[in-house]
């Protein structure tokens, strides 16, 4: 027993506290990452090298998480607009000098590091919108809506043109969520919904052919079973053939025999569904729900507006990630290229997510200190 502030703490509690960790959230994240590694091992065809690379990313992510958790909220807040400007600048840089990968201009090569500036935006967006709104008080007003609208639309359009529909969606959502959580009046919300509905035809004309194709494919995947519909058809077969209890770990034929495309990345959920079945999915959804719930709890307990809004937005964006990914893999939503958070193979998204959880940890630990 170590006494720090007069209360008796167990060693574990002391450790968590000194690392600025929320024990519950950390446990849930570790469990989800564990599930992810398990599925990845199977989806990659028992490729230990891929597993090691993913473990390395998780390590980097955790390191980032620990670091971010230590940053005082006030500092985070002060940096937010600058981070946003940096992100915006890099996005413009990508537009003119980006590397092309898989037909899209998303990457920026900084010599040592190749990364997607849109990932910065995933964090900069909620931070900046929260920063702006915390300068104001009360529910957002019309002026705020205009300012925030500009803050959201500019980077989202830039990302859409890369093109990267999935990230654009997530970045946009993270900004809008801040607005909603800040108490945007229902009138405005209704207005926004109408405006969005009106924007759909405009968006449609702005989309690339392949993006339109994905939407059309969603509506009728069987129209092109070997082409655009193939992903969805094979993914539905994988999910459906999993049944109640699944085919068992490493026994999913759809994934092991490579019928399922993108099985370690965007479609990893189908691998999980095939091998662990409906019961496995219930468990996974519960895990996601608990993480989001814990995040919102941390947000609700926060002592200042900025922390609340940032934490709330990060948690709910995480939920959007999950719902959009599972929705698209199961054929409910168009294939927009959103990974299954913390499970899909792939570096940048994982690290960004971990940094986001770092912010949640920071909010949680500093709220606790304030409470003291």
């Amino acid at each position, binding site marked *: 027993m170590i006494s720090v502030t007069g209360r008796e703490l167990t060693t574990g509690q002391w450790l968590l506290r000194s690392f600025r960790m929320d024990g519950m959230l950390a446990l849930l994240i570790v469990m989800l990452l564990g599930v992810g590694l398990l599925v990845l091992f199977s989806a990659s065809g028992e490729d230990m090298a891929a597993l090691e690379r993913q473990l390395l990313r998780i390590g980097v992510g955790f390191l980032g998480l620990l670091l971010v958790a230590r940053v005082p909220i006030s500092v985070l807040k002060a940096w937010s607009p600058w981070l946003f400007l940096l992100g915006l600048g890099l996005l413009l840089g990508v537009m003119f000098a980006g590397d092309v990968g898989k037909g899209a201009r998303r990457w920026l090569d900084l010599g040592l590091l190749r990364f997607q500036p849109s990932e910065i935006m995933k964090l900069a967006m909620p931070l900046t919108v929260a920063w702006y709104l915390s300068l104001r*008080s*009360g*529910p957002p007003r019309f002026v705020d809506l205009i300012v925030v609208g500009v803050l959201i639309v500019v980077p989202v359009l830039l990302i859409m043109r890369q093109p990267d529909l999935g990230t654009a969606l997530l970045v946009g959502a993270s900004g809008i969520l801040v607005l*909603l*959580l*800040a*108490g945007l009046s229902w009138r405005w919300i209704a207005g926004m919904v109408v405006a969005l509905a009106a924007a759909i035809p405009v968006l449609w004309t702005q989309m690339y052919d392949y993006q339109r194709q994905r939407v059309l494919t969603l509506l009728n995947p069987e129209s092109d079973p070997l082409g655009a519909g193939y992903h969805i058809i*094979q993914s*539905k*077969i*994988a*999910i*459906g*053939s*999993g*049944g*109640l209890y699944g085919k068992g770990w490493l026994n999913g*034929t*759809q994934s092991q*025999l*490579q*019928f399922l495309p993108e099985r370690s990345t965007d479609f990893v959920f189908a691998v999980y*569904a095939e091998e662990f*079945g*409906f019961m496995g*999915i*219930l468990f996974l*959804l519960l895990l*996601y*729900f608990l993480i*989001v*719930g814990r995040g*919102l709890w941390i*947000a*609700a307990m926060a*002592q*200042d*507006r900025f922390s*609340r*809004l940032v934490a*709330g937005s990060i948690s*709910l964006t995480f*939920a959007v990630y999950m*719902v959009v990914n*599972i*929705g698209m893999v*199961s054929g*409910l939503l168009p294939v927009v290229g959103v990974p299954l958070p913390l499970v899909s193979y792939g570096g940048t998204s994982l690290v960004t997510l971990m940094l986001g959880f770092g912010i949640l940890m920071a909010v949680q630990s500093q709220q606790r200190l304030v409470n003291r």
Partner: protein
Amino acid sequence: MLIDRPDSYNEEARDQQRFSVRALLSVLILLALIAMLVVRMFTLQVGAHEHFITLSENNRLRIEPIPPTRGLIFDRNGILLAENRPSYQLEITVEQAGDLDPLLERLSGMVALTPSEIDRFRSLVRQRRPFQPVSLKSGLDDETVARIAVARHELPGVEIEARPVRYYPHGEDFAHVVGYVGRINEQDLQRLDTRNYAGTSHTGKTGVERHYEDLLHGITGHRQVEVNAQGRVIRELAVTPPVPGQDLFLGIDLELQLAARDALADLDGAVVAMDPSTGEVLALVSKPGFDPNPFVQGISRGDFAALQADPHNPLFNRALSGQYPPGSTLKPVVALAGLEEGVTTAERRMFATGYYQLPGHERRYRDWRRGGHGWVDMNRAIAVSSDVYFYDLGHKLGIDRIAPMLGAFGVGSRVGIDATGERSGILPSREWKRSAQNLPWFPGETLITAIGQGYMLTTPMQLADITSTLANRGQRVQPRLLRAIRQTGEADSVPQPVRFLEPVQASEAHWEAIHQALIAAVNERHGTAWGSVGSTSPGYVVAGKTGTSQVFSLGPDQEYKQSELDRRLWDHALFIGYAPADDPQIAVAVLVEHGGSGGRVAAPIAHRVMDHHLQSRGLLATVEGDL
């Protein structure tokens, strides 16, 4: 205004409260979304599970057929007539080969490829399963194989495979008996069980190959394999081995077949020899023959056109499909009808002049011999082949009493030989004429029917069958090519049972009279086959009957002069006979197209066939031993 302005703490608390309400709402929305996902998953995984598990199995599993080995065909002594030989085949796995056009371009520099081969290849490519090799050319010679083998590293997806291909070692001599196999075509698919032929490329097209397709083919085996999305086989899950086809032993004796072929020499015609006691066909020759081997892999258009254009028509199976007027060879049957109907007796004599006239008719029906044969009884009438005697007998009998006897011997119906292409011939009768020509029967037609001319047509196969019935004194035996069946892998073959048919009813005395007349035709000085057979002292007694059938009709006052006629208008020469007469071992029918005289041309051929058979059965001392 003061009251409305919150202090900072109050604003903070309100904000927190507002936030909490929104957060709670978000949680509710999230729960609703999760519920939606759960419902979706339940629909897919529980509701439509059966559907998707089927789709997933269909994705994953493939049944690959394993074609069975085709049964072999032997002659009665175990000499191979149809075998499976490995043939080098050039095969391309398209998935590995990449672009086909440059590849075919390259290959055509190494292998002779015809446009039709390339077309066939392209159509097979369209029908193939993923990763299934497609045959481009078969029957490669060693040099070509070597040339491709050297360049193989530059030819991805190109393989040389040795595959069993049907081969007929005695080619031309058995083409009309054994037939041949060929690639399965659309028509074949109509009648074949496509499941059992899933892996089979060839099927029997003609002859025994076609008739006994079911026995020869065997049962296709299956290999259940797991494949990946690219169609590559990952592993084998289960194997049902194929059951090879059964080996067939024909009653044909290769040596006798060749002897019959040699006896026909370069004449066009047919020889059918049967064992009258079993119905086994001992030899079945149709000349000219053709080499069936090119048909196996697909004969070229040019070669096929040449075969079709050949004036000797080698593709025509004269023994089974050829329908000829039987001529005098069926006089014994008409005679038997006369005896059985009581219209005449064996002893009744008549003076046979050079022609016959129906009472009250002007038309003269000529005898083949100017001036006639003088006084003849039935024995002599058959031996000298008096036409006038049979005109008279035919007139007395009438067509309604001749036709049933001919029908009882099988004229007008297929003998039911176990090969393809057999035709039924024509049994002339009032009913036949009414249905075929919608005309009444005229009395004169009875006369020419009685000498085997007119409408009546028989195949050499039928003649052999009729000969066998004569030899058996009425007992009909089902003629057949198949003697025994052997399941592959087993040592012993199972003989096929002899099938007896409805016998021809006649009194023993009448059979004896006919039998003696047939002996006389060969062995008496006045017999039509005396000069060519009887006078050569064969060492055993031959019973037989010559026949010379008209190819065209002469006018009443015209005379047949062979020397003045185009060969294609020459008479067909026929002979039927059995030997030894008192214990028939072989019944033979010979037809020589446009051969002229049955006695001079056809009878010696039958004689040589009989000689060969009786010698080989040890029933006759060999010629060498005799000397």
